[in-house]
């Protein structure tokens, strides 16, 4: 299989413009004859569904939550990047492009990234027009701040709730189209199968989570905007419902899954407090603008109250190791540095499993310099959240932080048009693999989700639809009946096993294993061990699972069983990809490929996208490579020293 990115050639600055002109259009009067399915209602899904509705297509949008406004984009805190250069500090489309390619450790497609940087400015305009209340200066103009990994202030924010405000903007646009009759919304409906007819994506099978009813929906194209797979680790900053089911089912129907080993570990999360922990809470990395990260120099001081550790006994290790970026070093670098400090026995806070896994994030200098009021205005809600969870007041005691899985750069392979290798199947936002390479910069997830939904898919989907005849929305093809039957037998099986162990116990077991072996640091031996153990966990899952209740009403354990069953298959692919990529890059750190603690890339052999083809559960997947070329930003070793 040859993977054609379909990225336009020629000068990168005009590539998207020329591509937009070259794409076919659907006549305005014909748009209503086409139907589109959008799965997911986060930033990518809601913005896509709303915009496609505005254009005149008939859209059906699905989410598993009780309302589209609950999608996990809502929890993004820090901000959204845009190359507006409002601060006159040297930012430009080219600089945002450059920073993103470099930040992604030269594992993203240049032309996608350039387009993302171009579109970034339109997103801010659109959001402001919707009434998104971004932070403003006293003159009434928009405020900006700098954000992890950037030396310019290009991040727009709405206190620590930027994701919430942007999602509510997209949600309001979506609700407007629902009221206009152009989008039909199906909340509490979970996609459980993709239906492919004659090689084209033609629909989905969903389960009504309240009644348990299985229903088929047909359309001329299917857009998946179902987020990332971070919950494979069980403990992550993702919402509890986030899952890989939609993209995994599409993968099993032929869509290639690219770079699953690229997972992002966020450096500033509240450390685990006990073994009952259900999720980890992220503290926006904007905190690193004013907070200073440190750990005791001497392991013997780790049990002391931080106020008893004098200045000369503290190791501000990010400032020491990376003097020019210091506390603002990129996420992967800051995360690994924290892990190293804790592995050396210099971690702080309660020991879970015998190890203290935490470092301090200290605001005392900033409070002295800027005053309590300024810090409170910038981070008040985050400080409150921290105190609610830990019972400690961060104005008085330094916060404790530890890295946690947060975002996944890998996802379904898509071309420049965001279409997968299955014609008619489009993938948006975190669910696709594009744009961020091996590591995502802070405040770029919101940008990509909205870029895909508001400004890319409306054009590229039209180009696809212009080449197919409207096929109607009747799901009467036998492929739908077969897919429904597959889904039903799987659900019945979960209920019939009647074993001894709960879904969560399997999920925790899997999560512990992959966090340990395929988390922040990876070794060939560890990955091989994981690849041996995962099938065994999966086998026990199918023998010894217990799910009470029925498939005919709201059954949250049954929902989880389906998601964990998919994670148990997905995890194997993630580890296979990590084992095959014999280099370190971005969020993929192989301990056997480093120079004195710094990631060592291997451009000669691995400057490609690894896109995997499904070959059966327990069967080795087939690797396809899309070579990456860099015409503008020449690969260099990433250095933040």
């Amino acid at each position, binding site marked *: 299989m040859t993977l054609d990115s379909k990225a336009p050639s020629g000068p990168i600055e005009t590539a998207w413009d020329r591509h937009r002109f070259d794409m076919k259009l659907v006549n305005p009067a014909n748009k209503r004859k086409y139907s589109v399915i959008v799965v997911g209602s986060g930033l990518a899904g809601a913005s896509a569904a709303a915009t496609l509705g505005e254009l005149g297509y008939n859209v059906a949008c699905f989410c598993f939550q009780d309302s589209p406004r609950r999608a996990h984009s809502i929890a993004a805190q820090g901000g959204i990047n845009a190359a507006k250069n409002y601060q006159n500090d040297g930012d430009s489309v080219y600089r945002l492009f450059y920073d993103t390619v470099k930040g992604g450790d030269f594992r993203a497609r240049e032309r996608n990234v350039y387009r993302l940087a171009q579109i970034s400015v339109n997103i801010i*305009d659109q959001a402001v027009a919707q009434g998104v209340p971004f932070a*403003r200066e006293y003159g*009434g103009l928009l405020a900006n701040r700098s954000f992890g990994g950037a030396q310019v202030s290009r991040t727009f924010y709405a206190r620590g709730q930027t994701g919430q405000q942007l999602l509510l903007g997209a949600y309001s646009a979506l609700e*407007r189209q629902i009221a206009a009759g152009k989008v039909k919304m199906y909340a509490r409906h979970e996609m459980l199968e993709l239906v492919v007819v004659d090689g084209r994506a033609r629909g989905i099978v969903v389960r009504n989570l309240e009644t348990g009813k299985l229903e088929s929906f047909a359309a001329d194209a299917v857009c998946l905007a179902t987020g990332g797979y971070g919950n494979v680790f069980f403990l992550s900053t993702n*919402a509890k419902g986030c899952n890989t089911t939609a993209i995994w089912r599409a993968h099993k129907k032929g869509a290639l899954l690219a770079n699953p080993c690229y997972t992002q570990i966020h450096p500033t999360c509240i450390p685990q407090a006990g073994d009952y922990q259900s999720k980890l809470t992220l503290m926006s990395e904007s905190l690193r603008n004013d907070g200073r990260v440190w750990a005791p120099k001497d392991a013997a001081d780790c049990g002391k109250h931080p106020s008893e550790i004098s200045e000369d006994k503290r190791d501000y290790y990010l400032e020491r190791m990376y003097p020019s970026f210091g506390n603002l070093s990129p996420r992967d670098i800051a995360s690994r540095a924290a892990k190293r400090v804790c592995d050396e026995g210099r971690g702080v806070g309660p020991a879970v499993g015998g190890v203290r896994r935490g470092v301090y994030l200290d605001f005392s200098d900033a409070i002295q310099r800027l005053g309590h009021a300024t810090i409170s205005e910038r981070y008040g809600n985050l400080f409150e959240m921290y105190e*609610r969870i830990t019972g400690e007041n961060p104005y008085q005691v330094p916060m404790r932080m530890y890295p946690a899985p947060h975002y996944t750069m890998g996802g379904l392979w898509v071309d420049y048009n965001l279409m997968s290798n299955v014609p008619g199947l489009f993938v948006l936002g975190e669910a696709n693999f594009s744009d961020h390479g091996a590591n995502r910069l802070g405040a770029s997830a919101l940008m990509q989700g909205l870029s895909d939904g508001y400004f890319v898919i409306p054009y590229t989907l039209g180009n696809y639809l212009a080449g197919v005849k409207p096929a109607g929305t009747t799901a009467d093809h036998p492929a739908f009946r077969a897919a429904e039957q597959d889904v039903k037998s799987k659900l019945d099986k979960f209920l019939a096993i009647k074993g001894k162990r709960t879904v969560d116990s399997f999920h925790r077991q899997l999560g512990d294993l992959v966090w340990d072996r395929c988390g922040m640091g990876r070794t060939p031996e560890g990955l091989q061990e994981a690849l041996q153990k995962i099938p065994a966990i999966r086998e026990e899952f199918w023998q010894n699972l217990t799910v009470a209740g029925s498939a005919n009403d709201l059954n949250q354990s049954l929902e989880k069983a389906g998601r964990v069953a998919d994670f148990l298959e997905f995890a194997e692919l993630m580890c296979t990809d990590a084992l095959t990529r014999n280099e370190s890059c971005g969020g993929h750190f192989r301990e056997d490929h480093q120079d004195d603690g710094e990631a060592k890339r291997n451009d000669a052999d691995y400057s490609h996208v690894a896109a995997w083809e499904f070959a059966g559960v327990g069967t080795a997947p087939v690797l396809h490579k899309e070579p990456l070329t860099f015409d503008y930003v020449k690969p260099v070793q990433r250095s933040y020293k």
Partner: protein
Amino acid sequence: MKLTLHIWRQKDRKDAGKFVRYEVPNVSEHMSFLEMLDVLNEDLQGKGEEAIAFEHDCREGICGSCGFVINGEPHGPQDRTTVCQLHMRTFKEGDELYLEPWRATAFPVVKDLVVDRSAFDRIIQAGGFVSVNTGSARDANSLPVRKEDADRAFDAAACIGCGACVAACPNAAAMLFTSAKVSHLSLLPQGQPERYDRVVKMVHQMDSEDFGHCSNHGECEVHCPKGINLSNISRMNADYIKASLFMSPREGKEESGA
């Protein structure tokens, strides 16, 4: 610590429902309330019983999914805290807690502690937006907004749509929720062109959803996990009165010649 819980169990919309008593031993003070329920659910499932259904997702207090009533208080006893952020250090050994779903005609119980809040979505559909299609925006900084206005708009926009205001209100009114969205948009220049049309449509939708009327108890504000202010209701009422008395509706029957 050890707790006694009385949890509302209701199979589906039609079931009458009842409280069921559960003993939960070994509760750690560092657990969140939902983690305490997770532990109980693991225990129930281990015995082959069905888990207690409750809505939750982000567990960071922002998605608005979670929420039930603990001893008569929506989201429990801690101010400005959703139940997912409520930690067990708030409770003490031997506490007896009654957990029940939001009680409101407009929020039918779906199962156990889960209710149907789709009425909120329909209120937003009625007008909780600025009518701006993708692509038709001007440069963001060409529209300065007073910082004070932007901040107040943000305060209103911080609503997470959890429904605690309805559950707290003796009349099960949705005034705080509706007024938060009305205020968010009416405080900003972007919201002005549709300001009076919006308030009328949203209030009419709210009334048609079987929510009760506001009688100024203020319980909604007290129990709002995001601190949404009662002044939003005053602002909505002022806009509504102005719209009803002085503005002609944009849609509906044509105005008479007078």
